[in-house]
């Protein structure tokens, strides 16, 4: 039966070729290069085995482990905040509010903007004499005024906040779609049985949202691990490497012409992303199937 379908293997082949040429071959090439000392400043490319990986993990106090740590912090914090904020907005704008469509659009709008543009805009917003500090001063919160992107205690946190602001609307939209799939009858029946909003949330809403929540958590994790543009445009990895993440480090290594090391860092983030994404998906899907 399937063999008589109009579309078949030969339609897959062009896409497969494209995917192989543009994704699989570069990925494998990157992995191969990561085992070399390819450096644009030196002639010749030599196989160095795991030397680049050893340099990354053995360089205590060096930039590589710090960037791995910052990437992990950025990912964990932003995944939690983006998901919670997205869920909160979705619940708020699901029903009842008359102007909810306008609000939905407003909250989704940041996602439609290029991260680089957002980054450049927020550099102005977060400047010592920028709008955020001006507002804080005007309402008497002088103590909260900071050089947000230039201080040790606030630089990475500010970048996380901008990322959360940018992506919360996107999370909201996916979770909103999930919320609208829940039949009203469940809520009506549970109300008759005396369940309050809190119980309804735990017993009806959350179980129904497992699939979209899985999607947003996995995708947010992947976005977090691969973060580059927001950090690059906000701080460039500075000050003093305090916001350096793996991909800004990769960019720097490329800038220094060290393709071997740049690819080694890239492979690490690729493998970590794949393992975490597959692991999370399996765990969350497993719960969904059992639940």
């Amino acid at each position, binding site marked *: 039966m399937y063999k*008589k379908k*109009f*579309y*078949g293997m*030969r*339609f897959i*082949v*062009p896409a497969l*070729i*494209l995917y192989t*040429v543009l994704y699989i071959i570069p990925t494998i090439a990157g992995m191969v290069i990561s085992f070399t*000392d*390819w*450096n*644009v*400043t*030196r*002639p010749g490319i030599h196989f160095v085995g795991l030397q680049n990986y050893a340099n990354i993990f053995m360089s205590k106090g*060096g930039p590589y482990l710090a960037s791995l740590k910052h990437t992990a912090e950025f990912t964990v914090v932003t995944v939690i905040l983006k998901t919670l904020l997205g869920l909160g907005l979705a619940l708020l704008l699901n029903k009842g509010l008359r102007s909810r469509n306008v609000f939905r659009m407003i909250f989704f709008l940041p996602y439609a903007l290029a991260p680089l543009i957002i980054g450049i805009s927020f550099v102005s917003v977060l*400047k*010592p004499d920028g709008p955020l500090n001006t507002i804080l001063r005007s309402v008497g919160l002088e103590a909260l005024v900071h*050089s947000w*992107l*230039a*201080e*040790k205690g606030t630089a990475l946190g500010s970048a996380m906040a901008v990322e959360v602001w940018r992506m919360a609307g996107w999370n909201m939209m996916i979770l909103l779609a999930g919320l609208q799939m829940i039949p009203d009858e469940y809520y009506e029946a549970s109300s008759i049985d005396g369940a309050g909003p809190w119980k309804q949330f735990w017993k009806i809403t959350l179980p129904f949202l497992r699939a979209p929540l899985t999607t947003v958590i996995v995708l947010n994790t992947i976005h977090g691990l691969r973060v580059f543009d927001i950090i690059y445009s906000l701080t*460039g*990895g*500075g*000050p*003093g*490497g*305090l916001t350096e993440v793996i991909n800004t480090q990769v*960019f*720097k290594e*490329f*800038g*220094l*012409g*060290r*393709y071997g*090391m740049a690819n080694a860092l890239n492979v690490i983030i690729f493998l970590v992303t794949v393992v975490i994404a597959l692991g999370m998906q399996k765990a969350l899907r497993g719960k969904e199937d059992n639940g």
Partner: protein
Amino acid sequence: MRNKKAAGIMAAAMALSMVTVLFNCEEVHAEGGKTITIAAGTGWVKDIDKELAAKYEEESGNKIEWQISPDDQYENVLGSKLAVGEGADIFYTRSGTTINKYQPEKYMMDLSEQEWVSRYVDWAKEGTSYDGKTMQFQTWSVDGWGILYNKAMFEEAGITEVPDSYESFKAACDKILAIGKTPIYDPGATQWHLGVWLGELTTQIESDNAGFYAGLNDNSQVFAGQEGLAKALDQLAEMEEAGYFGDDFMSNTWEDAVAKMASQDYAMCVTYTTFPAEVEAVNPELTQDSWGMFPIPLNDNKVFGTSAGGIGRCVNKDTEVSDAVYDYFEFLSRPENLTAYYDARLDLGPCSFTDIPGNVPAVYEDVVGNATGTGLAAEDGILYWDNTQVGNLIQAMFVGGSSAEDVLQGIDDIRQPSFGE
């Protein structure tokens, strides 16, 4: 069966169109001429470059095709393109030791036999040379970074002598603070600018210990343990703690430097010698005579570090249009075109050719007069020195709690992989 055939035809058509898109990279040349591709960073190509290129196109029938990348990405793009054999016919790089970063033997054409080489001034010839061969066509200028100061503000603060030691520099800063102004505008958020501070001070070490640069460049010398540089970094941190850079200096950017100096809220800034012309354009009250300059006096430095001539154009060894490229350089090196170029480029100083003088800013003569000597600054004298990376390490000293010795060790760590095993 018919569906199977149709599917086969459509699949073949899709594959064919895909291959056509992927591999149809044939270059379209100007009618009767050749196309010269030029790769450069955004900030290196000005209106006058485009105007002269247009004039050349009209005269020769050849076509100039610019491949412009953002400044902070240009080196990445250039390195990658050269590595995969897709470099432009002409590519811009810094002069001096930076030439070595791009494997000149492999990627650069020897231009020594070109007629214009005989008209180079000494610094231009030296700065564009590698292994005795001329590797660049350069129309830039030698310049350096020193402490630019507002003469009127110094007078108002009662500073009668130009600082020539760290102690006198601190005393001057205190006097500026006393009149309610900020002593120094420093763009702490701009990493490369922090690197400039230290890059100027390596000149002093080389001046005191000839062969320091040579040792660094053949990897027999390291930065770690250089007491003079560590002392200078400690003094830099001390200045920050004393408030000489003002509040929130780590948020200051280089892009604001002209406006800040034009505002007269700041007395000093580490700049190049043609900077006053840019300030004058914003605030005509501040003419070029309003400014003086002295070498950065940390570690009691009195030496003025200069560039090797700025930015030059290299010719790709694999170019297929070398004749057209030589013709283009010959055109640009004509005295009338050099005059047009330097007249338009008031940010540049002396001309790289003997034909015309170019622009010699008053503060250039001032800083040279206040110095005991000149020499190449780190960026053009030390192989694999990167102001941005060095600035990142200095930022870490200000905000991350690392020490001056950590900065010097960090510079060694950054440079070492480029030398190989």
